[in-house]
């Protein structure tokens, strides 16, 4: 393939869209939308699984394309899957707090599912920062969550390998946020800075050096789109998250309060599955492993995958292993 045809193929791939599984919007509140995915396999009869994604990126990474979709993998296991899409906050959301997200929108999604399915509790899968929100929700509303799965979720924010945490420790977050939101562009720069040579150089050399087939280029472009599709962050919630979790490590130190109520992980008695990426540069394994010593549950399982943060969603290996692990664990409870 010549440089010209490669350029044309790359340009054509730029217009491919992420997402492959059919879903419908079933509930909305503010910018948040709750989606329910259409089943593709015989239902297991398990309680519905609500995926709580992070605020800092878009959730379509969970359903990027047919051969790179954890959601599709979960649907293939017969699970009834819901997903919260937090949307793109704008200036009108600058005062939205973590309590608004957890006790308002997340709680609203849960209530909708429970009411529509006449259930008392459901299963929750919290991803990355969404795992932190899920832990808080589970601690505040223990009767609403039957089983909790956390995936690449930081709990102890002061582990030695946590570069992000070291960087933000001395930043005046209130001044950074000011009265507004935090631009997604700033977060992009921050994440690239964690491994600048790999993420801004080597990645593109890999692109050229590999096979030029269309499927590979489209896969690359979808991931590229996701990486830089970073919503602005609601100012108040961002400030609370960085100060309370990254700077003060309140969750791990049992000092966290949301909307005036204590979030005590030791009160968690439900079954918990913790999925950890051994090569995760954003959430070091130790930051996730800490969960075990903080919870009160006797039913705790941790599975470590030899994958990085993004590899946990989109690597070929993750497609085979992660949904199956979740489904088997849920089925045994």
């Amino acid at each position, binding site marked *: 393939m*010549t*440089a010209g045809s490669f350029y044309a193929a790359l340009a054509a791939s730029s217009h491919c869209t992420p997402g492959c599984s059919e879903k419908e919007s079933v509930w909305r509140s503010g910018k948040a939308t709750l989606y329910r995915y259409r089943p593709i396999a015989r239902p297991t009869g398990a309680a519905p699984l609500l995926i709580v994604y992070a605020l800092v990126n878009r959730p379509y990474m969970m359903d990027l394309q047919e051969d790179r979709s954890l959601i599709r993998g979960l649907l293939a296991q017969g699970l009834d899957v819901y997903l919260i899409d937090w949307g793109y906050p704008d200036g009108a959301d600058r005062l939205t707090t973590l309590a608004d997200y957890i006790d308002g929108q997340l709680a609203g999604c849960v209530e909708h599912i429970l009411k529509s399915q006449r259930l008392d509790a459901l299963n929750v899968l919290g991803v990355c920062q969404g795992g932190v929100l899920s832990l808080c929700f589970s601690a505040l509303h223990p009767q609403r969550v039957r089983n909790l799965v956390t995936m690449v979720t930081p709990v102890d924010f002061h582990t030695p390998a946590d570069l992000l945490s070291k960087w933000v420790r001395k930043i005046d977050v209130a001044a950074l946020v000011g009265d507004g939101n935090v631009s997604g562009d700033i977060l992009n*720069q921050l994440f690239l800075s964690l491994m600048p040579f*790999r993420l801004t*150089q080597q990645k*593109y*050399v890999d692109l*050229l050096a590999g096979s030029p087939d269309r499927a590979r280029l489209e896969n690359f472009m979808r991931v590229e789109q996701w990486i830089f599709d970073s919503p602005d962050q609601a100012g108040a919630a961002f400030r609370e998250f960085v100060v309370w979790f990254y700077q003060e490590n309140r969750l791990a130190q049992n000092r966290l309060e949301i909307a005036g109520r204590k979030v005590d992980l030791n009160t968690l008695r439900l079954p918990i599955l913790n999925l950890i990426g051994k090569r995760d540069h954003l959430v070091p394994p130790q930051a996730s492993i800490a969960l075990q010593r903080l919870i009160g549950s006797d039913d705790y399982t941790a599975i470590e995958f030899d994958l990085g943060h993004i590899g946990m969603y989109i690597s070929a290996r993750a497609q085979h292993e992660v949904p199956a692990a979740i489904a088997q664990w849920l089925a045994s409870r």
Partner: protein
Amino acid sequence: MQSDPWQQWQALAALFTPGAPPVPQAGSGRAGASSSAPFADVAERFSAAARAYLDGATNASASAASPSRVEIARVFSDHLREIFADFQLPWSTGVGPNAGFGSASPAFSPNSPALGASREHQQRWERIADAWRRLDDAQRRLQRLGADALREAAADFAARLGPAPPPAVSPEALRKLYDTWIDCAEDAYARAAHGESFCNALAEYVNASSDCRRDLQTGIEHSAKFFDMPTRSEINTLHLRVKSLEEELHAVRDVRKPARKARPKAAASKAHPKRRRGKR
């Protein structure tokens, strides 16, 4: 894409920039690179340096001490350090006021007496100038730490190449050298980035940017008021009022909910007699 991706960087870079100069041969410098693909420039320069190293080291004496190969490896690693010294680390763009207000530091002498009706503006500009100086200083510290990391990476890279005879020039050999270099650069950068000096400098960079932006925003608001235009502060005040009203509304609803639930059945049936009849 093809057997040697390195030579294609220039061709691709030219395509990213319509009207760019004709595609030069490998090793001929930076022409053909574009702002759309800055990585192409670095990769292309790497390719040229790596070819020179492989050719030079292959022809060098293979004597026991092999000083010439070590020397060639050192020259190559130093060259890589220089190439990557031009490379802008992501934190150096987009965070500070440089992104939106240009790079010229405002000229104000610090601690000059603030007198008269414009004293508040003078003080604000002094604060901006001070923040700009802090920003500049922090950026220099970060650059210095980055340069130190690259020097470490170059030394590590030269040591890894060592006196062993290199493979013949091939796409695979170039790729292996490149990946080794990236490993060395990333390892050295990580050591620096975890260090207290880097964390302090980065925090100071962000904090000075925030201070600068706050005072610039105050100045813009002052001008906006002069033209009777709405300001951010005004909208914030209104926004806070709406938020407060929403919270009061939720609180009232929460109080009313249990009261409705506790309402006696007889009273409820009176309130909806028609619906009850309809159900029958």
